[in-house]
């Protein structure tokens, strides 16, 4: 019954408190900050609005009764609150953020400036086409770049994020199968796939059949052949894969999948490693989403918004979701419905325009030459990390790797230190940990993606920190030190078990006061 490995989710009991005895609980620049609901008071506001027009309301008797309960704060209170909150976050701007598979690269500020231009940031999605020709041109240009970079004939622009793009790809595949009267029920996906792949397949009514990997961390072709059959709709394969490796047999995979009458969905989460160097269209894929917030630097924003355009092959392109941009003699226009083979609509309006602008600004800044360099430098840095750490940590697979280097916890064997402890110790050293416990195919995974943004000095400093921590772990007498980490952060390890057993998902009136002592009181 076990399909997932758990790990400690309550803090270790042994570790000593790191709270220093200040009166406020503050520690220099690290400020404690209450919830807005605990700060706010009735009768205060952070906006000045004129009186409402004196009219007889036309609410049909549905005027709200009673108060909402929102707190009142002045502008300085709001600014201070959110500035203090911001200071509790790690960010790319502050340091190396080697979160494998997430591609935490620099977010150019030019992109932000462009997204806020009057005429781009403030236009309405349903303005008449004649008043948004520039916006449609921009979408068309971005689509052109994406098609050229991937070597694919079409692109669906509306998906809102990577997982939404996967959904788009599978919907197009389902529509194509349906159009040829072919009902298929299974999707094949490697065991190492992102959780979104099986979740997306399930949304489309498919069962998911895992394909094992070889000892080299690639798709096992024999196992794939054995699983292929007339009921297989598609394979979902990440390339470069989630172990940071290029699927060297990818063309063979495509041939096998197509021979079985199925489609090849490529998860493009790791496109950053090959942008400008390799066109997925040359490898035989049918659909691939591109996370604009990964490869094309749109900000991750604490978890979105993303944007996940999907490039499509000739076999799938007729089924693109609405809306899409077409160019005719009278300029650009949006096709929003009508007599097409489109499988339908994925969200309201026209896609993540704000992200399109940023991604296109990034592409134009780099050009074809710069994008190729992005892939090269990201791969170079990851291999450099792997080469520099292979004697003290344990790489899971033989290199070269692509843009991320995968290690497992063999180097921590018998030390008493876990992957989680190791990651938490990195935090005190000023680093965001790498992705841990993913992919699931190796034990105690640590997936490091330095990205092309880092200088060599920066990568060297990171490497020497990890070397130091690995050596410290191997001393054997440092278990408690690791288990107590982090100590220097706004909060130390949090009790996730408690959060899940008795969920508190919102502030409630009356829960005011004594928040810090609440646990102690129990």
């Amino acid at each position, binding site marked *: 019954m076990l399909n997932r490995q758990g790990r400690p989710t309550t803090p270790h009991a042994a570790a000593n408190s790191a709270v220093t005895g200040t009166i406020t609980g503050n520690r220099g620049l690290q400020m404690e900050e209450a919830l807005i609901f605990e700060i706010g008071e009735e009768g205060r506001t952070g906006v000045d609005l004129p009186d409402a027009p004196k009219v007889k309301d036309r609410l049909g008797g549905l005027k709200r009764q009673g108060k909402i309960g929102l707190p009142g704060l002045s502008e300085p209170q709001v600014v201070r609150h959110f500035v203090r909150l911001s200071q509790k976050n790690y*960010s790319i701007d502050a340091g190396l953020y080697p979160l494998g598979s997430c591609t935490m690269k620099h977010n150019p500020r030019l992109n932000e400036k462009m997204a806020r231009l009057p005429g781009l940031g403030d236009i309405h999605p349903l*303005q008449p086409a004649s008043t948004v020709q*520039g916006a449609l041109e921009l979408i068309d240009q971005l689509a052109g770049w994406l098609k050229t970079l991937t070597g694919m004939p079409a692109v669906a622009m509306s998906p809102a994020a990577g*997982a939404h793009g996967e959904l788009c790809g599978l919907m197009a595949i389902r529509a194509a199968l349906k159009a040829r009267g072919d009902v298929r029920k299974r999707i094949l996906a490697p065991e190492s796939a992102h959780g979104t792949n099986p979740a997306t397949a399930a949304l489309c009514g498919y069962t998911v059949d895992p394909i094992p990997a070889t000892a080299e961390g690639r798709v096992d072709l024999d196992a794939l052949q054995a699983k292929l059959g007339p009921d297989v709709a598609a394979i979902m394969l990440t390339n470069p894969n989630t172990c940071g490796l290029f699927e060297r047999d990818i063309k063979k995979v495509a041939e096998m999948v197509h021979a079985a009458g199925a489609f090849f969905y490529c998860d493009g989460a790791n496109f950053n490693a090959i942008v400008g*160097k390799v066109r997925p269209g040359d490898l035989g894929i049918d659909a691939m989403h591109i996370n604009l917030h990964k490869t094309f630097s749109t900000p991750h924003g604490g978890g979105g918004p993303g944007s996940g355009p999907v490039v499509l092959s000739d076999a799938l392109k007729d089924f693109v979701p609405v809306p899409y941009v077409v160019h005719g003699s009278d300029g650009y226009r949006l096709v929003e*419905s009508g007599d097409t083979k489109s499988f339908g609509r994925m969200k309201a309006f026209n896609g993540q325009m704000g992200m399109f602008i940023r991604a296109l600004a990034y592409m134009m800044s780099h050009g074809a030459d710069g994008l190729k360099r992005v892939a090269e430098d990201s791969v170079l840095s990851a291999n450099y990390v792997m080469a520099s750490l292979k004697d003290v940590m344990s790489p899971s697979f033989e290199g070269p790797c692509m843009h991320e280097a995968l290690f497992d916890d063999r180097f921590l064997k018998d030390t008493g230190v876990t992957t989680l402890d190791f990651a938490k110790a990195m935090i005190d050293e000023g680093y965001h940990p790498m992705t841990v416990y993913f992919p699931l195919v190796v034990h105690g995974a640590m997936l490091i993606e330095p990205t092309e943004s880092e200088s060599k000095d920066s990568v060297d400093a990171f490497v020497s920190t990890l070397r130091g921590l690995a050596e410290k772990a191997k001393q054997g007498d440092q278990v408690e030190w690791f288990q107590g980490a982090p100590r220097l952060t706004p909060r130390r390890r949090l009790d996730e078990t408690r959060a899940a057993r008795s969920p508190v*998902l*919102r502030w409630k009136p009356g829960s005011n006061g004594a928040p810090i002592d609440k646990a102690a009181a129990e």
Partner: protein
Amino acid sequence: MRYLGLTEADRGEMLNTIGAGGIDALFKDVPTGALNPQLDLPPHQGELEVERAFAAMAKKNVSPMEVPFFLGAGAYRHHIPAAVDHLIQRSEFLTSYTPYQPEISQGTLQYLFEFQTQVSMITGMEVANASMYDGATSAAEAVLMAQRITKRSKAVLSGGLHPHYRDTVATLMDQTDQPHVAAPVDLAGNEDLATFIDEQTACVVVQNPNVFGHLRDLSGLARACQAKGALLIVAVTEITSLGLVTPPGAMGADIVVAEGQSIGVPLSFGGPYVGLFATREKYVRQMPGRLCGETVDQDGRRGFVLTLSAREQHIRREKATSNICTNSGLCALAFTIHMSLLGEAGLTRLAEINHGKAVQLAEKLSQMKGVAIVPQAFYNEFAITLPKPAAEVVEKLVEKKILGGVPASRLFPGDKSLANVLLIAVTETNTEGDMDKLAAALKEVL
């Protein structure tokens, strides 16, 4: 190249350390012939050149700042306080990711907790999640959630539901051949959805105010749903309405989905926006998306973590409640900051201004020959009927430098009964001068 950190010398040294003869040695797994394709794309450019290119494209659009502007239909122009955009551009918010390491993500986690609380409060519901992509995808996810809870399949979609929402729901349901019934288009605002509910009905999806502006009391519908064991899903596309209008929670909604764009998020040609998703506490484990919860740290101090993650794709995989991963974090932050600035008094006043101005414009337009205001009760948007096709009228208004509304035919193409219907939204950004100009221009055009 300004965004890249390595020098040529660095690259050489790093290749040496790796023991690779050249960069392409690292790409040796790429099939022969597929490496280094010729790309027909321009070379890199400096900031100035890129700015020029974007400015040129921006100039080809008509900005709502330049003209009287009355478009709504699910996306609304509101004033965003300066502090909002400043704060969301702080590096620590803009350039961080999903709070996977809570010790160094308390900023993000705390605002998500505040966001969840604000959304719960304004919708009148018990719990809310940490956001979805937009209102339409929230609606689609709500239908799937209702199916899980009721173990029934059919969804009934109101004839007043925004067609983009209706189509987003239908497209998702079609993947698994789930039945959905769209009630006839409800321009009059008097549909009786109770008649569509049967023993197979998982949920009824209804928008309030609906796409034509009608505000309706949904309490009766909620009771009808309850009596048949179906869930009531209420969609709100203009979230500022809840500053003035009875929230769906108070009318008996089981799930509230909403577009949060009106608070803090710019129009941006349709995205990114922020989907709100709120429900009853008893359904929390069936919710899609991320949830932030309160807990304590090792030293007993209050802190926040992502919680109930076993619902989500990264743990539950094919049995997850949704495939959503990245959501709308930064837009949720903008929402939280703007809502914090507004507070109770500000949100209420903002809503009163929106409604008051809409009433003023409705009165102005209702005096015009051939024009009729469709809804009796509305918030800040209402459909009007014209003596000629609304799409033509809108084009003529463009010539007069007015963006005069959304023709219903844009949302309901092919529905001839709606050809002469125009949707007009009024917000605090519209001046009396704007309204006079619209009325005057309409008079000339009609």
